[in-house]
Structure formats: C-alpha cells, structure tokens
C-alpha cells in the first residue's frame, strides 16, 4: 500500500520536494560562494571595541583584538612581525619601527622600511597573501600582527600559538571606515604602552579629515556630491567595484562623493547597464601597473564611453603610491581622503598631487 502510494500518487509531491530542496541547497551554495557576501556582513555585526581592561598589575596588559579574542601580555613585545602593509605603517607612525623584525614584500612605506630591509635589519616574511610561516617563526618574534579580513593570516594562528608566539588581529583589510582604523591604531598602541603617541596621531588624522569635510560641506551646502564609480582593475578584467561597507567606499563618501556601488557589500561585480543607468560623473580605476594611455583608450571602447565622466574627461587612473594610499587602511587615511577629495572636488583642492594619478587627456569630443 505504502509502496504503491509512493510510486504513483505521491510522485509529483516527491518531485516537488526534491526540487525545493535542491533550490534551497543551490541558494545556500550561491550565498557561500558569492564574493564578499554575507560573511563580511556578519563580521561587522558584533563589533568588538578595543576595551581598556583595567588590570591590578600594571605590568600585565590585555587587549581584545578584532576577532574578539583577549590576548594578555606580561611585558612589552620586543620583536614584532607585521603581516600587512597597513600594520607596518601604523607601527612606524607610532615610533615603534625599532621593534619590527619582519614585514611583507608589499611593505614599502615609510621609506625607511625598504632601506632597513636592504640593510638586512628587517626580514621579508613573504607576501601579504602568502606569509611564510617558517620564516615568521625563525625570526623568534614575541608578537605577530595580522589582518582579520585575510584568510591566510587567520590560518597562521594555531601554528604560531603552538610555537608560543602571541598573535593579534587588527581589522586591516576588513576595515570599513576611519573608526576601524582608529581602533587598529589604539589596539597596537595599547600593546606597546604608547597610548599618548596614538592619541596624538589620531587627533592629527581626524583634524586633517575634518578640515577636508568642512571645506566640502561649506562649498556644497548639503547638496549631494558627484557620483563616483570605483573600478578595481581594467574593465576587461571584470567590473569589480567597492561596496558601501569597504574602506574605499568610506573614503569616497568622506571626500564628498556618492559611491554608485554603495548599496552593495564587499567587492561586487557590476554590469554596464547598472553603471550607465547611474551615470557616474567621475570614474576612478586602479590601474594595476598597466599602460595608462592604452587603458584609457580601452575604456573608451566600452559602454563606459557613454558616461558623463568619460565625456567630460574625468576618468582617473590610480597606481603605485596613490593606489597604496587609497587601498591601505592605515595612518595615511587622511592622505587618502585628501587625494579622493582632489579627484572629486578639484575646484576646492586643486588637481591631485600624489604620484601616480593619471587623468585622461582632455574632454572627449562629443
């Protein structure tokens, strides 16, 4: 009886159930695969603020890092390895350069970093995405600082802790605003007991950004700024942009622009229809070491040529130092806001001066 029911009467129901289950599974897989999707949103929900945990023994310092872990230090670390360019920049900006024994091959700022590396006083422990765990351990550090948004850094945690090395994660590439960067600076400063230097640095950064935002606010008087499209690489590589919860997204809005990909999260792929229907006034492209004139010509051969930005000659390519400044959530965030402000509001701040920003030659002929 049940056998018969299963083969005849309920077969359609079985098919429907199978189809629904597969659909749900498919959506779940899709969400897991979708680049920078829900995982990134989830990490920003429980924001662990770097708390000052008052300890009875002044020698012992405890910080809560970007992953919400409590890390306790018995003394001030003397040998530090930085796994991210932004962390290296923070360490040097706080005057802790003499503690740094290892950096990534991407760490090129401040200029003394490459000098110390070539003198052999700082070792290179691999790239930002592929730190060499053996090299890190062989430097015998007391502390390794990594970026919470970078999976290879998280994978190092257990290995390093097993070797008795303390690991602290800052927001790093997961930073979505100035406030995350400020938290990173405070976390690092607290470990080394240099809170005064940190507050001075933060005040400086906030002051510089404040003066930019006030200038913009006075000039625009509350009207919405120009629409900005940011592209991560040449369009032929895919129309990857920066969502509203990314560092670049925050820089664009702080500099008085409206990020047209602001409604997305992480690093979304856009299409030409979306871009044209939002008609950006300014296009900023991370050039990734390509040939600038060729890249502008290529942009002109895509539907991007129909945008107001291209017609008015407001396509900017950022590369090398300009690209580093915009991409690294570190102490140069004020320079990043200034750079973006001079791209968005050249009438207020003059054309950008940071090397290398390339503006396409003249307005295109209509």
């Amino acid at each position, binding site marked *: 009886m049940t056998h018969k029911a299963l083969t005849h009467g309920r077969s359609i129901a079985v098919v429907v159930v199978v189809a629904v289950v597969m659909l749900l599974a498919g959506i779940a897989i899709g*969400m897991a695969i979708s680049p920078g999707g829900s995982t990134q949103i989830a990490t920003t929900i429980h924001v662990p603020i770097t708390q000052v945990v008052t300890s009875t023994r002044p020698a012992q310092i405890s910080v809560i890092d970007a992953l919400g872990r409590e890390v306790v230090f018995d003394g001030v670390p003397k040998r530090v390895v930085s796994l991210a360019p932004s962390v290296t920049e923070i360490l040097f900006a706080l005057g802790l350069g003499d503690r740094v024994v290892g950096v990534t091959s991407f760490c090129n700022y401040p200029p003394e970093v490459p000098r110390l590396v070539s003198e052999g006083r700082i070792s290179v422990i691999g790239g930002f995405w592929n730190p060499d765990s053996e090299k890190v351990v062989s430097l015998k550090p007391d502390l390794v600082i990594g970026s919470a*948004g970078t999976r290879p850094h998280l994978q190092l945690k257990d290995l390093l802790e097993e070797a008795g090395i303390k690991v602290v994660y800052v927001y790093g590439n997961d930073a979505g605003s100035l406030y995350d960067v400020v938290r990173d600076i405070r976390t690092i400063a607290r470990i080394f007991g240099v809170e005064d230097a940190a507050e001075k640095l933060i005040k400086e950064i906030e002051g510089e950004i404040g003066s930019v935002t006030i200038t913009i606010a006075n000039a625009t008087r509350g009207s919405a700024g120009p629409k900005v499209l940011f592209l991560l690489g040449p369009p032929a590589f895919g129309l990857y942009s920066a969502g509203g919860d990314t560092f670049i997204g925050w820089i664009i809005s702080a500099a008085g622009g409206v990020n047209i990909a602001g409604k997305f999260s992480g*690093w*979304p792929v856009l299409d030409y*229809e979306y871009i044209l229907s*939002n008609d950006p006034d300014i296009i900023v492209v991370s050039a990734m070491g*390509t040939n600038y004139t060729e890249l502008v010509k290529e942009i002109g051969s*895509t539907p991007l040529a129909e945008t107001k930005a291209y017609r008015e000659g407001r396509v900017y390519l950022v590369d090398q130092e300009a690209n580093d400044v915009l991409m690294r959530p570190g102490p140069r965030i004020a320079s990043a806001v200034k750079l973006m402000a001079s791209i968005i509001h050249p009438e207020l701040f003059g054309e950008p001066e940071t090397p290398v920003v390339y503006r396409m030659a003249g307005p295109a002929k209509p």
Partner: protein
Amino acid sequence: MSQEVISGSRRKFLFLALLLTVALAVSLLFSLSVGTSLVSPKEVLTCLIAFECGKSAKLVVDMRFVRACVAALSGAMLALAGTLVQGLTRNPLADPYIIGVSSTSLAVVSAAVLLSPSVLVHRQVLIAVAFAGALLGYILTTTISLLSGGSGTSLVLSGIAVSALFSGISHVLLYLSQNRIAQLGRNYVFLLLGSTSGVLRQDITYLAISLATSLAIIFVLGIPKALNAYLFGELYASQLGYRVRALTATTALVSSVLTGATVAVVGVVGFIGLAGPHIARISAGTSDHRATVVLSALTGSILTVLADALTRAISAISSWGELPLGVVTGIIGAPFLAYLVVKGGRG
C-alpha cells in the same frame, strides 16, 4: 514498418525543435526585460516591437541585448560541446572541460599577466590569449591520447592529466601574480569564473564565428552519424568505414573550439555542458546525435539565457552584485533535470 518509426521520431524531433525555439525566443524576451536599471518591461517591449525608444531605453536595451546574445550563444556552444564529448567518451558524466581546455587557458592567461600586466587592459588581447591557451590544451590532450592509441578512454585520461598539470601550474602562476590581480579581499580563483556582466558587442561576433564554423564542420563531415556508430564501439565504427582516430581528433577539436571560445569570452560556466545534453536526450527520448546535437544547443541556450537574467535580477535586489553564472545555471537547471530523471526513470 521501420520507415514509419523513423518518420514518427522525425516528427517528434521537428516538434521539439520548434517548441524549444519558441521557448528560446520567449526567454530572450524575458531576459531583455530584466535588469539593474529602472526601465519598465513595457518600455522595453515598445522599444523592441514598435521601435519607439527613448534614448536611455535604447542604450539599456542595447546592452541587455548584447548580454542575452552572448548568454544564448555560449549556452548553445557549451551544451553542443557537452553532447560531442559525452558521445566521444561514451561517458554520461563527461563535461566539455574534461579535454583540459579551461585549465590551460587559465594558465596561459596568468602567465601572460605575470609577464606583462598590460595584457589585462585589452579585452581582445585577453580573449585571444585565453583562446590560444584553450587550443594548447586540446593539442596536448590529443597528442597524448593519440600516442596511447586514440581511443575514447585514453582521451579522457589524457584530458585529466593535462587538466591536473595545468590547474597546478595556473595556481602557482596566479599566486605569484596575485598582487596585480587581487590586491584586496578578492581571492584569485575568481578569475575566469563565468559572467556576462562585462561583455561587449564584438564578443557576439567571436562566439558566432566559432559556433558557425563548428556547426559547418559537424554537418559537413557528418559527425553526428559517425558518433552514432561510434557509440557501439570503435570496432563497429571502423567496420562501417569510419576512421576512428580522425573522428575522435576532429570531434575533440570542434568541442575545444566551442568550449575555448566560451572560456575566453565569458569564463568557466559549469552545469550547462554536463546537463544540457541530458535534458535534450531525455526530452527527445533518443540518443541519436542527429537530433541531440540540435536539441542540446537549444536547451543549453535557454538555460543560460534564463540564468543570466536571474543574475541580473539578483543583483538588482540584493547587495551581492552579480553572482557567477555557473552557480545560477545549476540552481535553475538542476531541479528541472531532477524532474526529467524521475519522469524518465518511471516512463
């Protein structure tokens, strides 16, 4: 008696082909009315039927048209390649990437980016490099396969060897070049993940030329009929007068051209090449390649057009941006395939 059976199945084939063509036309129309900008479907329809377009509506319809055409062509090409490869290997689980074209393509692209990042600037150069890489994969696989006798099994095994070697190489190369390709939170494996979001008008031409050439080769050389004989064994096919080595090499070449062109233009799109042929076979009720070659192209086309429209709809309402096409083709196609399998198994 046998004559009647043939004419009966021919009538069924013609009916199915007509039905699927109409379905394709409907899906294209549906695809044109879905998008990330706020142009109403009504406006799109008047633009298409009455040729009365606002300037912005025309621009939007133009771009959607390019995407829909690329999706339709690449879906047809992948499913067609899948039918050929499944016949060639006599393996229902074979998909067109089994010849090794996608991994060699990725390896060659990443080597080119490592040598000169300016390769990334020109879409045409990128497409040419990726296509050359796909053909390199074909040449390697067929050479190894011919050296080992040229049978269907040796082709699968050589394809697996070439894929394994080159996906290893491409991962090493991408690891080295990732400071250029992926500076931020993006992992390098997303390169070549299929999407039609950045396609241009010229891409339609590339795909159309590859498809037309392949179809010409398929029908001029009578590959479907030869594959029918080949299904019963290499010996059987050679007794009927077919040159087995030439047949396997040509069929593999055609599949590689079809797959390589889609890899170069839209990237790797899963599911279509594997399931498209099955959907065509089950709904036609026959494995006759003369029928399934045409029907699989149509079903692959419909599935990809619908999946592409769905990625745009998702992008419009969610915060994820455009999802990879291969994920969505699976979500749309898998329940349908499951339904057909259950129905076919019972009937």
